[in-house]
């Protein structure tokens, strides 16, 4: 057991930290203000920021050097996200392309696909979005209904997707659709790259309880996808999608964990300012959040050790996501008690955090699904078979 960084890792961290200090992002623009191309000022800001990361070689350090990354180790990659979070810089515009699309192509893509797609992902020239969820499928990937029918060397795709973030800015969508109605439920799926720039694809923003629209619905009516844009082979979509999902939590976890730490530090400072650290009830609740925050950090790093020692990330990662989301909800709720009713003023950052946190236990795997995963895959408990 050694909970220190190696000299190489420290050098990596210091280089990044130095670069971030010398290259602060532009000030965050106000919400709204769509420009001519329909790109919001906020998104443009994030795209500009990714370009600067790209120019400096910091857009995707975990990618192999041959694809423009730095071949960073898992630990270095975690350090990268910790530092990105710590510096409070914006999220790279093409985060889904960098974290999910790119890595999925590296595993399953053809040489042509890699050559064609990886460079514009990295440079934020082409934004990617993810079309997995459907309104009627929820946590149940195997019951997807979007249908793909082969016509010559094209696929004709119709259906509806939901929870696609960044769809309005995206050139490509990682789409999972049913290409074979006869095959067993998850065997008939195929993974496509769908060009978003066609009339057959309509994007409708999905407003959430915070009032903003981070996500979208996609309405797809006879969209055309060339056969060359199948990833990983026809009928293999389930497996390819799992690769994407596996990558989903790994890196972001470290950024989220740091964000939680920052919120907690802000809250402790606020409590101190109001003299509430002398209230044993508040002090107890804050200390409990501190313990949880540290547990999340430790469990995240421990998960990394397991990957480095035994290969693939284990389902234990579900514990981190579960604990993080629950803790963020408790933290933002406690903030209302510490800050006072003013925290419930719209536009106040605490009120935003409170509302946004409600999504944490739903997005990226509901807590209920995570508990199922833990029970079945970590503890080996029998799977519940239900009869209709």
């Amino acid at each position: 057991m050694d909970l220190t960084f190696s000299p190489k890792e420290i050098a990596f961290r210091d280089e990044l930290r130095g670069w971030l200090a010398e290259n602060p992002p532009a000030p965050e623009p106000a919400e709204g203000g769509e420009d001519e191309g329909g790109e919001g000022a906020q998104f443009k800001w994030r795209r500009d920021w990714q370009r600067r990361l790209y120019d400096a070689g910091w857009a995707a350090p975990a990618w192999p050097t041959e694809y423009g990354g730095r071949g960073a180790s898992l630990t270095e990659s975690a350090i990268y996200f910790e530092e990105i979070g710590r510096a409070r810089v914006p999220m790279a515009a093409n985060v889904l392309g960098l974290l999910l699309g790119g890595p999925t192509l590296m595993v399953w893509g053809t040489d042509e696909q890699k050559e064609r797609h990886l460079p514009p992902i990295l440079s934020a020239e082409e934004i990617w979005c993810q079309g997995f969820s459907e309104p009627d499928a929820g946590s149940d990937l195997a019951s997807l209904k979007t249908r793909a029918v082969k016509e010559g060397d094209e696929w004709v795709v119709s259906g509806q997707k939901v929870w696609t973030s960044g769809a309005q800015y995206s050139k490509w969508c990682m789409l999972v659709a049913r290409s074979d109605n006869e095959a067993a439920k998850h065997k008939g799926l195929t993974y496509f790259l769908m060009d978003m720039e066609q009339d057959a694809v309509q994007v409708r923003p999905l407003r959430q309880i915070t009032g903003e629209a981070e996500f979208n619905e996609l309405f797809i009516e006879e969209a055309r996808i060339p056969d060359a844009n199948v990833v990983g082979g026809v009928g293999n979509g389930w497996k390819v999608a799992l690769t994407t999902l596996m990558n989903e939590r790994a890196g972001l976890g470290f950024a989220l964990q740091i964000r939680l730490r920052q919120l907690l530090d802000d809250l402790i400072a606020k409590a101190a300012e109001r003299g509430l650290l002398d209230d044993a009830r508040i002090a107890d609740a804050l200390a409990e959040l501190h313990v949880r925050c540290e547990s999340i950090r430790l469990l995240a790093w421990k998960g990394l050790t397991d990957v480095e020692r035994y290969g693939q990330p284990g389902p234990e990662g579900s514990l981190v996501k579960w604990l993080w989301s629950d803790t963020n909800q408790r933290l933002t709720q406690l903030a209302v008690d510490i800050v006072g009713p003013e925290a419930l003023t719209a536009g106040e950052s605490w009120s935003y955090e409170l509302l946004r946190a409600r999504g944490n236990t739903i997005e990226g795997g509901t807590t209920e699904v995570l508990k199922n995963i833990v029970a079945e895959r970590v503890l080996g408990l029998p799977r519940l078979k239900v009869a209709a």
Partner: protein
Amino acid sequence: MDFGFTDDQRDIQRTARDLLGERARPERVREHAESGRMDTELWRELCELGWPGIAISEEHGGGGLGLIELGILCEELGRSLAPVPFLPSAMAAAVIEHGGSPEQRGRWLPSLASGESIGALGTALDGTAEFVIGGADAQVIVLIEDDGSARVLAADEAEVSPLASIDPTRSAARVSAEDGGELLADGCAGLGRALVAVSSELVGVCDRALAMTVEYVKERKQFGVPVGAYQAVSHRCAQMLLETEKARSTAAFAAWTADSDPERLAEAAAMAKAAASDAGREVTASAIQAHGGIGFTWEADVHWLYKRAQVDAVLLGGAGRHRARLAEILADKVRASAAA
């Protein structure tokens, strides 16, 4: 010993529910919430029906009914989230009626009873209340200071700055008045009643959140069966019911003490507010979770309940503050029995 409503009370409940079911449909509530306006048409209608004055004495133009009846209306209004300033106005009236002099009651209550004036009640520190529900619409504002003293002010005697609350079905404002207004003889005498009113509203919010959730999870299917069949969901719903019933029973008890055993009101009101504040937060959060992704969307409407619950939960002090108050009462009892 009878926990049931009287026939009259059941009539009030049924009438209110029917009326609001008709006049405060979700689309209408959303429309007003999105534009941040109160529903003046509905408010006028409620005023004509005498709702604002239901618990104000007949002497001052009210209906002269008790806190149980007031609680019934609060619960129904909470259930519908109707965008009207009923609760703040009723709370202000309760504090004036039970803590004011005969002159003060005569001066302020009739217009609150008729709905001609809208009231609001806020807790202040050195003359400033940071967050007064209904404050932006009110003509009559009562500020209770930390030391228990209370003043009634006409709105133009105070500096009223509207705030955008996360719950736009009701206005909010920062209210500041270093001096001016009339000091009430007993600032705290009506506070217990105000606490019961907001607790009752929270019961209505919880009840609606549970009903929406039950309806949703019976329909929504996952892996081929309604999600409500899964224990992760069904046990969550059972927990929501338990929290709601805890809040409901303590709020009912507190309402009863107000009219029939006022010496126990302080304790009963603290219990009710503690139970209702916790229930409001937990039940509405659970409602969002049980709705899954849909619950996080603006369109699903369940978030309005969550937002109302969040605001009500801290109104006149959160669960923690009322449990602290209860602990003081319990400590007093221990001292008293030790002295006996």
